[in-house]
């Protein structure tokens, strides 16, 4: 029973949220699996797909930021002030990370001397030139930012599940597709 189905996010916001989830999940898995591979044509192919997916995430995040800036999100369910603040902070931080991670990957690729050509069609400018030391810094920056995002997503998911199963306050339902909510209420 879902008694407190409060105002939900707009359809566009919901779609973009779950698209981000899917893209980030696939690209994180791809990223973690490709790095330890011995150099091979397959590894190069995976790196290329990883870059394309990463740039796609960047585009989706830009759309989300524009969308979010123009629409107020539905109000929070009743919860302590610190939780509301923590939720807002972690959301802002996730937007920041989801923007910085693709940028750090793009710069990292440039610093190794490999230009990113999105979908093989759109060459992104090399904002930094080839530099071994810079490449090493950017590689670990990319990794570090991803680790931070992973930790934050973990908290985000745990909090969403806690609100859903323990508080039963309809917080999760705000971000679920309408069809899913109907079939489960």
């Amino acid at each position: 029973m879902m008694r407190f189905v409060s105002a939900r996010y707009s359809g566009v916001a919901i779609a973009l949220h779950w698209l981000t989830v899917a893209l980030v999940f696939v690209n994180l898995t791809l990223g973690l699996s490709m790095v330890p591979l011995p150099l091979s044509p397959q590894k190069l192919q995976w790196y290329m797909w990883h870059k394309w997916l990463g740039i796609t995430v960047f585009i989706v995040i830009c759309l989300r930021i524009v969308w979010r800036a123009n629409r107020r999100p539905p109000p929070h369910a009743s919860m302590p002030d610190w939780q509301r603040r923590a939720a807002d902070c972690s959301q802002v931080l996730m937007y920041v990370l989801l923007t910085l991670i693709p940028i750090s990957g793009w710069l990292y690729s440039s610093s190794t001397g490999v230009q990113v050509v999105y979908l093989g069609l759109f060459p992104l400018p090399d904002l930094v030139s080839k530099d071994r030391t810079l490449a090493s810094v950017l590689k670990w920056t990319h990794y570090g930012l991803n680790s931070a995002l992973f930790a934050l997503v973990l908290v985000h998911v745990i909090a969403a599940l806690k609100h859903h199963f323990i508080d039963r306050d309809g917080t999760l339902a705000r971000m679920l597709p309408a069809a899913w909510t109907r079939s489960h209420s």
Partner: protein
Amino acid sequence: MKLSLALRSLTAWFLIATVAFAAPVAGAQNVLVDKSEISFVAKQLGVNVEGRFRKWKANVVFLPADLAKSKAELDIDLASIDLASEDSEREIRGGLWFDTAKFPVAHFSSTAMRELGGDRYEIAGALALKGVKRDIVVPIVLKKDAAGNRVAEGSFTLMRLDYNIGTGMWSDTKTVTNDVIVRVRIVLPPAA
């Protein structure tokens, strides 16, 4: 101060001595290695990837008035390759690519030089790479830099598979193109 000066002149002497001994070609004009470069570019999955060689030696005698007596010899230390990452450098030194354990040096020796007019020349020669020797022709343009040095710039397309470079799983030219554009920039001091 005096000591550093002495050290510097000693170093200079060593450099001169080294260059002199490393120059078997008679009358070789010292190539300014710091200003010169041997680089290349290939397409990897549709994206240009550049590299260069950190270590190489050249003996060049270039006499525009006497091209028959002119000569260019290059020895390239293949293991000194500079690529995107240490990972790819390790791979390219391996057996499927340069196999530098067996073939450490690429050697170019000119056989004929031809004037094309307007500071343009053509250098024909043989390139020995990974046990394969092939005739190549390198068009060059001769310019002068601000210091009056003579700058010869040229490029040619090398088909990597002609030299068995990138075999096995790398032989698919959709991953790395067969054509590799090799760029040579040789800087010589002003003609005496």
